[in-house]
């Protein structure tokens, strides 16, 4: 029986590198239309989790079921599955020898065999949405980081994926460009696209998430709605992690005029 509400079911997922476990029997279910934000300290396995979901890393154990299809099988045709799972990387990874439009059309035309005119229409729609239609002939090297990342998002969306994976997509950006990328993702969330987002932007996480999971040492330590997670984390580990982003009660230093707080809006 396939529960039509569930788009992705991960059960007891295990992944290790050279015998060192990174994901420890991780279990997680994602519902259709859900925006799941994954938070956790560096090296806890967030990227590894995403990479296992579209076959960039072979897993060592457990099961991944996507739309009723078992992905953790020798027979998985990853080329087919990846057409339905969009992925956006921290470093954009646009193809440098193709211009914006060629980057976007490669998948729909060459992989999915769509008509060029139809793919072009879709590319125009998305590029307009992210404000880059007039840059369609530009090469990646002519774009800013924020523009490159928006093109990378469109490249993934142009395939009509059923779920999108975002791996710290603003981590390489200058602060003034972070917002333009996050706004694109926020709009996608509003439209009900299923997404798994790894981020260190806490304010964004809170705004975009239907649900937050906190991972530490390869296991899910907390799994809760954003309000609960940020205001009332259940575990010590999550609380300590969140404190890194807080400046409340930090002394201003020797020349300070007494204790002052610099609250960070979450």
């Amino acid at each position, binding site marked *: 029986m396939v529960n039509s509400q569930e788009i992705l079911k991960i059960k007891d997922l295990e992944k290790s590198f050279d015998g060192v476990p990174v994901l420890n029997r991780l279990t997680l279910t994602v519902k259709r239309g859900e925006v799941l934000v994954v938070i956790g300290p560096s090296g806890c396995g967030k990227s590894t989790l995403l990479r296992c979901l*579209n*076959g*960039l890393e072979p897993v060592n154990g457990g099961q991944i079921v996507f739309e009723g299809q078992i992905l953790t099988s020798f027979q998985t045709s*990853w*080329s*087919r599955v*990846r*057409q339905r*799972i*969009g*992925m956006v*990387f921290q*470093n954009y*990874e*646009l*193809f*440098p*020898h193709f211009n914006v439009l060629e980057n976007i059309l*490669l*998948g729909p035309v*060459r*992989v*999915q065999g769509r008509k060029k005119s139809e793919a072009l229409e879709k590319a125009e729609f998305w590029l307009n949405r992210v404000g880059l239609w007039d840059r369609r002939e530009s*090469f990646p*090297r002519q774009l800013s980081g924020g523009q490159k990342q928006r093109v990378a998002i469109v*490249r*993934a969306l142009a*395939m009509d994926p059923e779920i999108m994976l975002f791996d710290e997509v603003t981590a390489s950006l200058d602060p003034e460009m972070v917002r333009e990328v996050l706004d694109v993702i926020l709009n996608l969330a509003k439209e009900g696209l299923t997404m798994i987002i790894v981020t260190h932007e806490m304010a964004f996480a809170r705004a975009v998430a239907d649900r937050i999971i906190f991972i530490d040492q390869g296991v899910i330590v907390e799994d809760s709605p954003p309000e609960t997670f940020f205001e009332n984390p259940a575990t010590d580990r999550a609380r300590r992690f969140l404190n890194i982003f807080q400046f409340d009660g930090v002394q201003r230093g020797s020349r300070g005029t007494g204790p002052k707080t610099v609250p960070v809006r979450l």
Partner: protein
Amino acid sequence: MDFEFITARAPLFGQAARLTVTLAFWGIIFSSAVGLVCAVIRFYRVPLLRQAAAGYIELARNTPLIVQLFFLYFGLPRLGVVWDGETCAIAGLTFLGGGYLAEAFRGGLSAVGRGQIEAGLSIGLNRFQLLRYVIIPQALAVALPAISAAVIFLMKETSVFSIVALPDLMYVAKDLLKEGYSGESNLMLVASYLVVILPVSLAFGYWERRLRFAGFGS
């Protein structure tokens, strides 16, 4: 300088140059195919084939062409395989060039970032499409200087073809030396090689500059 001699013998050099170019052309085309196959085998670490390719590359690069030709022209017949001079020349150049071009291509392939490959995979490209649309165009841009050096090296190596009795440029020049016109013959020999090789060299230079402007990296 006897210009009458030069004009009289120029057609001879023209013919010889055409033979040199033809042999070099096919040798380099086949070398590229062999080199590309070897480089891709090593890139994807195909078991067994990978060791075979590595062995072949060492053998090709560390033996002189003249020895390879000797084997093909004088050795193979003893094993019952008789090839004519042209076949031996093209086969020999392919054997040598395959090794050099494999190394040139490999340098380019290893310069393509892991992230680029994963980005290609993530939009569903299969192995072949990944090579064609993502890996080879980028590898080619990086490898072009090495490819250019190898191609020009191979064109110059054709000068030993006369040992398999082919009337190429060297062969014709040697013949004329016997007539005692050493200055004229040498001049025509140098000029002929320049006419053949210089355009190739310039074309590669132009291509390299164009790719640089296309701006790879970052």
